[in-house]
């Protein structure tokens, strides 16, 4: 037999899982008609660029400019990613090189 706090924890996880699923499913349910509305098609085209931009800003929003060692690794590694991608246009290469240079910078340099 499970004790009541274990049962409550299971209940919590299930509630959080169900609400998460409903949120994810909501747009698909609302726009499930035969044809996707023109406005939604438009958003499908232009929204991703804006949202990816938002996610980039979200990732870098916690950089503090108090000390050079806090923001310089970010700027250098970020530049590695951007320049390497413009040059080679190889997604995996840009990401791996950027991450390794960031790890090296925070672990050995700063």
């Amino acid at each position, binding site marked *: 037999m499970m004790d009541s706090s274990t049962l409550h924890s299971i209940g*919590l996880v299930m509630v959080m899982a169900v609400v*998460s699923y409903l949120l994810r499913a909501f747009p*698909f349910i609302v726009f499930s008609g035969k044809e996707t509305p023109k406005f939604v098609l438009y958003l499908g085209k232009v929204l991703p660029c804006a*949202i990816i931009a938002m996610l980039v800003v979200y*990732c870098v929003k916690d950089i503090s400019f108090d000390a050079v060692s806090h923001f310089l690794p970010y700027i250098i590694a970020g530049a590695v990613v951007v320049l390497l991608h413009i040059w080679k246009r190889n997604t995996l290469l840009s990401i791996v090189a950027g991450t390794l240079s960031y790890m090296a910078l*925070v672990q050995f340099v700063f």
Partner: protein
Amino acid sequence: MKYKKDAKKAFVATIPVLAGYLALGFGFGVLLSTEGYGAIWALFMSITMFGGSMQYAAVGFLADGISLLSAAVMTLIINARHLFYGISLVDKYRGSGIKKIYMIHALTDETYSLVCNDNAVKDVENKHFYYFLVSLLDHCYWIAGCTLGAVFGTNVNFNSEGIDFVLTALFLTIFVEQWMSSKDHTSAVIGVVCAVLCTAVFHENMLIPTMIAILVSLTVLRFVRRDKYDG
């Protein structure tokens, strides 16, 4: 296998997420185990909830034993951004049949960024299979990361400091890729401006205000330049 090439492409595309999810999931597992919830809980939560920030927050909720209603409200607040992800995938996922039920469940920030990358699916034979596999692989990495983290607790020797940059690098690369492959940068610029302004005002709670600001800006843009987008 029928779509062997597509499967290979899906795997290669998800490698950055593999690194990011193992690291992030591991962190979650370790955190969860410090509250006395072991691997079975990490497994349970990563399969059913599948969301980074949500699961991290849930550790606190479980420890405090908050009410079911509070848990539902907190989930609504933390995961509200998923409402916006679906909007831009309604057409892409149309006709994917039973796979869609799972693809909706597995829609995270990272999976979203991968399925939005249209350049990646240029030569893909079966797009829905590709999207499904990307979702499933990402989910598997996450489950593995969370469970391993809970199993090993804090006994790790590998110095992984800085590996979280992999997700920044992933988003940044996709941003550059989208920028280079499109002539019209209006939407990308709107995204940056809205996000920076909202971060200045709302700090760590910037996601939802930014989404709303982006949605309003893009709606206004469409009416101002109606001819351009309806053609």
